């Protein structure tokens, strides 16, 4: 078992596709941060003072209108208003703000999931297309072991790669905001950043398992990528349109909820349903491990030509 894990890990890190994806993602991260830094302009003292005055006026309005009808925790209306009103929105310039890092990380989720999906689908699909699955099975004929070890190694590899890339993004973003932006952050910011990083990375890992499982069933990388695309963009769209309430069981909505890390309300205006992050995580896990189980069971009984 250890030997098989070691072999799969060596294969995973030797794969050109993984290296190409990593380099492309890295270039994308560097380019995005550099562009953001170049476009970032720090406000001068006068702009800051004006924004501060506008913010204070807005706070006063807010207090006068009893926090716009919101219920203040502990009755501290002014504290609630100050939490709502961000002085930076009154600045004419748009500096890069470290406080926006969690949102930036969330925005990378689509790419991270795509990377995971491609890595997983190609890791399994390539073995079928080149015939190396036959070779591997002449070394380790216990197919369930082969399928599960590969899924675990590919998922861990995808998680590590995505976490590394997001870590690099965080580092570059921090440097950019230190040089050409604002570094003030609200309370709980660091926890939120770590939470988003972990959730997005794990979703990338789950996507790699889903991609690998479909490639195992279709014995082809393209089958996996095409299948996921058709499912997410067509089938889920149809189901969502016909039966909005079923949205809480759909992969897309649950992935979105996990990325956000907060409750997601879905519906069509007439009926709404709330998906909680914990429930969404369970649904994503069911999809992931369910597909893996089906693919492994199929792999165990089908002939290998």
């Amino acid at each position, binding site marked *: 078992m*250890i*030997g*098989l894990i*070691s*072999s799969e890990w*060596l*294969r995973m890190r*030797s*794969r*050109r596709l993984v290296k190409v994806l990593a380099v492309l993602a890295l270039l994308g991260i560097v380019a995005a941060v550099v562009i953001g830094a170049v476009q970032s302009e720090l406000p001068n003292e006068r702009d800051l003072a004006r924004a501060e005055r506008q913010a204070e006026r807005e706070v006063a309005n807010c207090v006068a209108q009893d926090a716009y009808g919101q219920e203040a925790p502990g009755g501290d209306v002014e504290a609630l208003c100050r939490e709502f009103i961000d002085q930076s929105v009154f600045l004419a310039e748009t500096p890069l703000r470290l406080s926006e890092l969690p949102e930036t990380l969330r925005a990378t989720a689509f790419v991270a999931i795509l990377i995971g999906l491609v890595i997983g689908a190609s890791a399994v699909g390539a073995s079928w297309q*080149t*015939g*190396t*699955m*036959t*070779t*591997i*099975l*002449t*070394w*380790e*004929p*216990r197919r369930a072991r082969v399928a599960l070890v590969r899924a675990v190694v590919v998922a861990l590899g995808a998680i590590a790669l995505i976490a590394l890339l997001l870590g690099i993004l965080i580092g570059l973003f921090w440097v950019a905001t230190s040089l050409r932006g604002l570094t003030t952050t609200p309370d709980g910011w660091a926890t939120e950043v770590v939470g988003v990083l972990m959730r997005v990375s794990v979703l990338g890992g789950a996507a790699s398992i889903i991609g690998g499982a479909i490639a195992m069933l279709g014995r082809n990388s393209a089958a996996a990528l095409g299948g996921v695309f058709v499912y997410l963009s067509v089938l889920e769209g149809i189901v969502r349109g016909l039966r909005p309430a079923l949205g809480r069981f759909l992969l897309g909505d649950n992935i979105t909820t996990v990325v956000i890390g907060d409750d997601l309300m879905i519906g069509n205006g007439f009926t709404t349903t709330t998906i909680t992050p914990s429930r969404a995580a369970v649904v994503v896990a069911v999809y992931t491990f369910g597909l893996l189980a089906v693919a492994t069971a199929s792999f165990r*009984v089908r*002939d*290998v*030509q």
Partner: protein
Amino acid sequence: MAETCCGGGFPPEPRQEPLVHGQLGAQYLDRNRASEAQIDRLEDLTHAAAPESGSDLVAIAEQRAEQGGFGQRVRHPALMLALRHVSRVAATASSQGAPLQWADMASVIEIEGLRKEYRRLRGGSTLAVDRLDLEVPEGGVFGFLGPNGAGKTTTIRCLLGLVRPSAGRVRLLDAEVPTNLGSAIRHVGSIVESPALFPRFTGRRNLEILGRIDGIGSATIDVSLDRVGLTDRAGDLVKNYSLGMKQRLGIAAALLKDPSVLVLDEPANGLDPAGIVDVRGLLRSLGAEGRTVFVSSHILSEIQHMADRVAIVARGRLVASGPVSEVLASRGGEGVIVKLADLRAGLDALRAAGIEATMGGDALRVAVPVHESERVSRTLAERGLYITELRPDEVDLETVFLELTRDEAEAAP
């Protein structure tokens, strides 16, 4: 169990009484043309160990070698293979509470009533293998022959657990396939059809990836690469290899496990004449080391030069099996071919002397054993007829193969 050319199975081994490990191993080595010294060494070793138990004799041998008790001789490949084999047989017999018998060692591959039907998408099915019985004894080169579509590759796939038989039983190194294949596969090296390798990795990286599954290190990889003559190209991407180089790399991968059984499907495919000769030499040497080399091929002359035994399949069925000489004898004429200037006169002279002969083409086929060919030449010379050529009436494997497969095709409904 197996059908043979001559109507029976492989001749049963004469020894059936219980044997101790040392004797088993000694017989194994004897069968594989080992030296007296190797046999003595094995007997010393196994008697010094615990002959009545299922001890891991390989581990003991290695331990002894390290301690210097037996020196480097104990590491001789044939001896190590014998030890490995005896250990395995001993463990199996011990677990079953049965006495060790020479018969236990008879076959490394046993196929009984194998049938494989492929279902077609549009209904119906294709019968690839039909009630195939086959036994492959331990050691030497075993040729597995058959025309395209005869079921050779399907049989190999069933043997390696890649394809599930529709019916029948397959055993490899005493392990039931596919249920217990996991324990046996580490002693089996194989190539199925063309070697399937990772094209965008180097040759060495391919071997590293496979070797890691069994914890095989770089030293063994170097030896395997050297053995197939790929050391200089090991750093090149496999996608840039010629077909012959890929075959060599496939063989190197199969050798990595230091296997006691090699299952090779058309290993000479894509090789140039020099490469074919190299591979032939390699497979013969592997067989001579005591390994069992099960090789399928359609290059019949290669098999005839290389194999100790053959099996011929046609339309999914075994049509002949046994030592090459027996298979050839089953179809060969016991006689001599004679050429002379006046064939008609020669034929009359031989018949007049009571020697059975027929005219065929530019020669006479004379039905006398080779060792009595002097009779033929004397009879003709006495009548003033002088022979220009006299040779044994030998058939080659190709002729036998074509006859057998044609017979089978004609017999098919």
